[in-house]
């Protein structure tokens, strides 16, 4: 490469590790530093978590008692739709991209992401996308109310919010794809010499696989919503039965995206748990390679199970049986992972700091969500459960106590590395116990409501469901308020800096390249690639 030499010369004087852009605007708006962009992603995600959470509280407030009390049914439906879109695309996905930005270069000994300018761009699309999406709430006719799955014909019967939602989804898709390209290029091209693929931390592995899922399915979502757009505004009939189209086809295309999407939201969570549990069990991760192959198997299987979301639309028996067994097959690699986490803890010298508490709760509660998923996979049973609160309970167990709990675990785990300060451990534990108790109070009764037949996305219900709904709503408000403590802990650690100074290792059992850097991690790290010594790698023995 001709420019190799020039490049090195120009930057020879950049060894100064704290060479930050001087102005606020230059640093936070024009900056390309992976740590700054990671921070922006995480803060954006926290903001969206509270916005989406407020919408959930509107839902739970309305459902506190039977009857219509607080909001119009149409607004209720807007809340269920927007809550999902904001939480999926605004809270969970950007949080994981933020973690990837912060941690992947530090974990593989790279100085930055492969494509720093594109990194800046992929973040700054997000605020515009969500401004577009949230602005629909203030338009004539309100926001989208047909469910986040955007099934036609219902979803395109709204006003012009449809166009705004679709363009917002396009922008989120572009952002995700660019983020994924960046992560793939970083992992494939920028690992420190000697850090083979099968020596990478599991978090990096899960993100590599997630990034491939993203580039494979986000264009499918973009294509399907584009067809909705042309159906509504340009007279096409992709999903319009009157013109020879088929609304059920949308569901097939949507879930061909949608099912890999749920693994996009959970695979990085698996990675986080696989980093934290060995640290606090003070043992290498049990079955490192099995973890990697299990993740890859789950990713592959996620492409061939989409129709289990639509058993009730009418499908030949052969199709139902295929999708039922393919879905159940996913339990095998997932079971391998859960087994390995438990085996990692087995006879370890465990301590229970806040990140470990969240990681253990993740393993237990995610498994509960996995079991209800297996129940939903059974075709004859699914006819009973479909579109009831049982489904709501299932996916909130895997997304809230799965994805969100792992994000919180990751924040507590790496916050001292990011800020150089310890968070308040007592408050962290209080936050954990409040969250864990209230989240179960919130979602566990919804299993019973669903089995008893309460449909989802309806603002009113039979009085027979009153007690469990009241318990669920109380749990919901308590869980929501508990998260203010999380926000306070972050403010306390990041801005007030009242905690003890963190050491470079932070946790006694922590292993991995990121822990060889000082805390807080210098603005430019690994400008010279580190020497890879197998003993500092997160999982120690990588031979099996």
């Amino acid at each position, binding site marked *: *490469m001709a*420019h*190799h030499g020039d*490049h*090195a010369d120009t*930057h*020879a004087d*950049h060894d100064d590790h704290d060479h930050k852009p001087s102005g606020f605007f230059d640093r936070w708006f024009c900056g*390309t530093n992976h740590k700054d962009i990671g921070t922006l992603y995480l803060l954006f995600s926290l903001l969206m978590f509270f916005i989406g959470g407020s919408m959930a509280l509107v839902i739970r407030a309305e459902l506190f008692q039977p009857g219509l009390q607080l909001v119009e049914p149409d607004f209720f439906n807007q809340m269920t739709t927007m809550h999902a879109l904001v939480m999926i695309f605004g809270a969970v996905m950007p949080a994981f991209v933020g973690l990837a930005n912060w941690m992947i270069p530090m974990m593989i000994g*790279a*100085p*930055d992401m*492969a*494509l*720093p300018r594109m990194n800046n761009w992929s973040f700054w699309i997000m605020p515009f996308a969500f401004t577009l999406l949230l602005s629909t709430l203030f338009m004539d006719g309100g926001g989208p109310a047909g469910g986040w799955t955007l099934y036609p014909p219902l979803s395109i019967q709204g006003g012009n919010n449809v166009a705004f939602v679709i363009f917002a989804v396009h922008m989120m898709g572009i952002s995700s*794809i660019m983020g*994924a*390209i960046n992560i*793939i*290029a970083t992992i*494939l*091209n*920028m690992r420190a010499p000697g850090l083979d693929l099968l020596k990478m931390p599991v978090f990096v592995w899960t993100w590599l696989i997630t990034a*491939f899922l993203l*580039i*494979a*399915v*986000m*264009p*499918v979502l*973009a*294509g*399907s919503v584009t*067809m909705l757009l042309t159906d509504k505004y340009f*007279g096409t009939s*992709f999903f319009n*039965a*009157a*013109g*020879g189209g*088929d609304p*059920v*086809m949308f569901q*097939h*295309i949507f879930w*061909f995206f949608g099912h890999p999407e749920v693994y996009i939201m959970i695979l990085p969570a698996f990675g986080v748990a696989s980093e934290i549990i060995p640290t606090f069990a003070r043992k290498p991760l049990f079955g490192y390679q099995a973890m990697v192959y299990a993740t890859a198997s789950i990713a592959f299987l996620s492409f061939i199970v989409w129709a289990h979301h639509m058993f009730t639309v*009418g*499908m*030949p028996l052969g*199709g139902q049986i295929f999708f039922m067994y393919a879905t159940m097959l996913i339990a095998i690699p997932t079971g391998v992972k859960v087994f390995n986490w438990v085996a990692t803890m087995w006879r370890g010298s465990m301590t229970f700091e806040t990140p470990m508490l969240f990681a253990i709760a993740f393993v237990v509660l995610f498994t509960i969500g996995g079991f209800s998923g297996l129940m939903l996979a059974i075709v004859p049973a699914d006819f009973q459960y479909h579109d009831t609160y049982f489904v709501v309970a299932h996916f909130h167990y895997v997304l809230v106590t799965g994805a969100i709990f792992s994000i919180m675990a990751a924040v507590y785990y790496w916050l001292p590395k990011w800020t150089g300060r310890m968070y308040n451990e007592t408050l962290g534990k209080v936050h954990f116990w409040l969250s864990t108790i209230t989240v179960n109070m919130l979602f566990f009764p919804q299993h019973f409501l669903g089995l008893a037949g309460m449909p989802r996305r309806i603002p009113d219900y039979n009085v027979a469901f009153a007690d469990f709904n009241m318990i669920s709503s109380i749990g919901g408000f308590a869980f929501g308020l508990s998260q203010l403590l999380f926000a306070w802990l972050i403010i306390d650690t990041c801005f007030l800096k009242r905690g003890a100074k963190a050491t470079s290792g932070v946790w006694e059992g922590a292993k991995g390249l990121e822990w060889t850097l000082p805390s807080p991690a210098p603005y*430019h790290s*690994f*400008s*010279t*690639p580190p020497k890879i010594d197998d003993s500092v790698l997160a999982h120690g023995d990588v031979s099996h």
Partner: protein
Amino acid sequence: MNPAAPVDHRGVIRKVLMVCAGSFLFCFALIPIYSIYCEITGINGKTGNAGGTSAAAGVVDTTRTITVQFDTSVKAGLPWAFRAKQASIEVHPGQITEVLFEASNLSANDLVGQAVPSVAPNRASIYFNKTECFCFTEQTLAAGETRDMPVRFVVDPALPANVSVMTLSYTFYLNDIATGRLAQHAVVPNNLAL
């Protein structure tokens, strides 16, 4: 950016973008694929080809009697009444049968409708062949007009032995584009609110 890793990322980016483009195209390719798949397997009640291609076509199997039921509906937005003149009919496989449906335009405007057929059960739908059907073309009914609409069909003798009842269902939709065209050509402007 840094002196240590001046790596050329263009190769990876090119490959990844090709995957993206491929999956975007795949999304649109799913439409013909789905349509062909439904035609072959009969999912979604898509009926067999007009004319019938079975080797046994033309041979009437009098040993079997199939009940064909008729079902009609009109989608909101089309002020038509639409019914089958007979609730059901008994036919032998291979026997060409004609049945009549009746549609009335209840509004004061000329309207164009499009009927979309569906056959249940799914596994039988590919054995249900229509040789003539009002659903093959747009149907225009003048204001207040009532008309009989014929369907000629034959049940393929290869129909699985465990199927003895089939349902042919039609839904009439408003074809607003064709209706709009109709309104433009009309000498007397009408006040159809679309």
